[in-house]
């Protein structure tokens, strides 16, 4: 070890493609699993949450309108960028979750692979959950999945990185934009993820990451009239119920917390379909000619 003094990182929020401090000017101490100080994290406020929603809404049109192929390439690019910074995340995850280097490495590898999994889904999900409907009449009828809009995501409390990636990637793969509340106790891998997203061609605002007191940030998000859905993965039972009640005000789609023991397990499509709408478009057929099919 040299006696050179480390340059410490100032962890910041990631909102609208930028790295602002909390508008509140407040931070809170983040410690490792043993209680050792790691860094100060921004203590995001209601206003930060509001700004993040604005950014996410602004990004929604472009991101949902991008081709699925394009979204797939960008998600894959995130995996590429993470792979290059693997060591950093292994260290951060090890510190955050009190894991050995090897165990943390497994988590990070699985998280990178998860981006690859969802990168491949972007241009397939519509074929799996959408399709033509054989209606009894002279009509062409097609159902397609569409992103529901701005999704508030409460990242899992314990799995600070693999869990985080497992809830963000499916939301944005289908064209939603996200306001993510990082694990309250282990927010640093999440805040660092912003740095990778910012350099992966992901348009600013598609993912916005906030750190702070989950209950404090989540309440305005659950009640926000311009948020379309909420993933309660990181809420405990009492908070989840309270947020679900608040979410009813504009009938947000609510993904309730589910017992997930092992985020490394293969994902299905559930976390994507939870935030998809089905749009069905009808059009008459039968214009071949007045002397044709109809009589």
């Amino acid at each position: 070890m040299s006696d050179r003094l480390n340059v410490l990182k100032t962890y910041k929020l990631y909102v609208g493609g930028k790295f602002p401090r909390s508008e509140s000017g407040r931070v809170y101490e983040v410690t490792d699993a043993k209680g050792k100080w790691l860094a100060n994290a921004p203590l995001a406020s209601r206003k930060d949450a509001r700004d993040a929603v604005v950014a996410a809404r602004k990004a929604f049109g472009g991101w949902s309108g991008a081709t699925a192929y394009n979204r797939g390439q960008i998600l894959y690019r995130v995996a590429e960028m993470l792979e290059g910074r693997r060591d950093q995340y292994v260290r951060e995850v090890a510190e955050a979750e009190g894991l050995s280097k090897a165990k943390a490495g497994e988590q990070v590898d699985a998280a990178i692979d998860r981006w690859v999994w969802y990168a491949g889904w972007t241009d397939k999900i519509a074929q799996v959950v959408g399709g033509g409907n054989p209606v009894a009449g002279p009509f062409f009828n097609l159902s397609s999945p569409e992103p529901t809009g701005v999704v508030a995501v409460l990242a899992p409390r314990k799995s600070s990185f693999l869990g985080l990636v497992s809830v963000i990637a499916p939301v944005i793969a289908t064209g939603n934009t996200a306001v993510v509340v990082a694990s309250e106790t282990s927010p640093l891998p999440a805040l660092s993820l912003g740095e990778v997203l910012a350099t992966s061609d992901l348009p600013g605002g598609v993912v916005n990451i906030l750190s702070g007191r989950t209950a404090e940030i989540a309440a305005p998000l659950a009640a926000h009239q311009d948020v379309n859905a909420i993933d309660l993965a990181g809420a405990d039972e009492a908070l989840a119920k309270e947020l679900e009640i608040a979410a009813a005000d504009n009938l947000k789609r609510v993904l309730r917390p589910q017992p997930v023991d092992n985020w490394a397990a293969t994902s299905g499509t559930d976390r994507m379909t939870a935030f998809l709408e089905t749009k069905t478009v009808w059009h008459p057929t039968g214009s071949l000619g007045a002397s044709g099919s109809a009589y």
Partner: protein
Amino acid sequence: MRTGLYSRYARRYARLVTMPTTAPNALSDVTASDSTLRRFLHGLPGVDAVGLEARAASLGTRSIKTTAKAYAIDLAISMVDLTTLEGADTPGKVRALGAKAVRPDPTDRTTPATAAVCVYPDMVATAKEAVAGSAVKVASVATAFPAGRAPIAVKLADVREAVAAGADEIDMVIDRGAFLAGNYMKVYDEITAVKEACGTSARLKVIFETGELSTYDNIRRASWLGMLAGADFIKTSTGKVAVNATPANTLLMLEAVRDFRAQTGVQVGVKPAGGIRTSKDAVKFLVLVNETAGEDWLDNHWFRFGASSLLNDLLMQRQKLATGRYSGPDYVTVD
């Protein structure tokens, strides 16, 4: 007089809306050149086939009962252009047809006469004699009916002969080939020439042969083209092709005459022909007229059925309404 018979629930709404009427020459620029005519016809609103057919089918579910049915059957009889257009037509056949047109049901003198008899030009004189003294008109197909594939001079001669023989009405066919080739001005010019040949004595019915025009968009364009050229009636078909009058194509033509009058003030009649064989069908067509063009067209001056076997079915239905028992083919005349 009838109002009292009907439930106040089923009363139709009064007609509040009057369409704006512009001067008759409002469309005169349209026919100034081939390109203006084409632009105009292609600028007409499109027709969604499924929607049009659905509307026609929906009007077909109207339930016309008792007094309304009696009214409709008499009206339909009065609108029949009783037709014979066979290579085997003889003077005897035409005379019989004329007699039937004048007195459709010899057993019931209250039965209205039909609107007209419709024959080939060489039979006009015979037909004229057969209906002499009645209000029944003589209509003659002309212009090398049904194909229309003859030089214009021949077509016009055909028309003049028929008119000279006393035809009150001329049923011409348009040049579908020219229409489908996009040569609208040629079609227009032919119609105006035929109209001129009709003189002031004969009303002109323009047959589109809708089955050959094939698309509803074409039928709408042909309707406007015919009306712009001076048709007194627009008529679906010759009865000589696979698809003739249908509720949908007739509905479309009724929309055209309705809109044409709204724009120009000129009223044009409609004649579905071919394929209408039963009273039930005829009543459905009258419902189309009533609810699309409106009651102004519910008169044989403005609406006709080109048909032959339809008349007997109407007569049998009429007898059923009068006697309460079903009639049979032996109780109507076969001519």
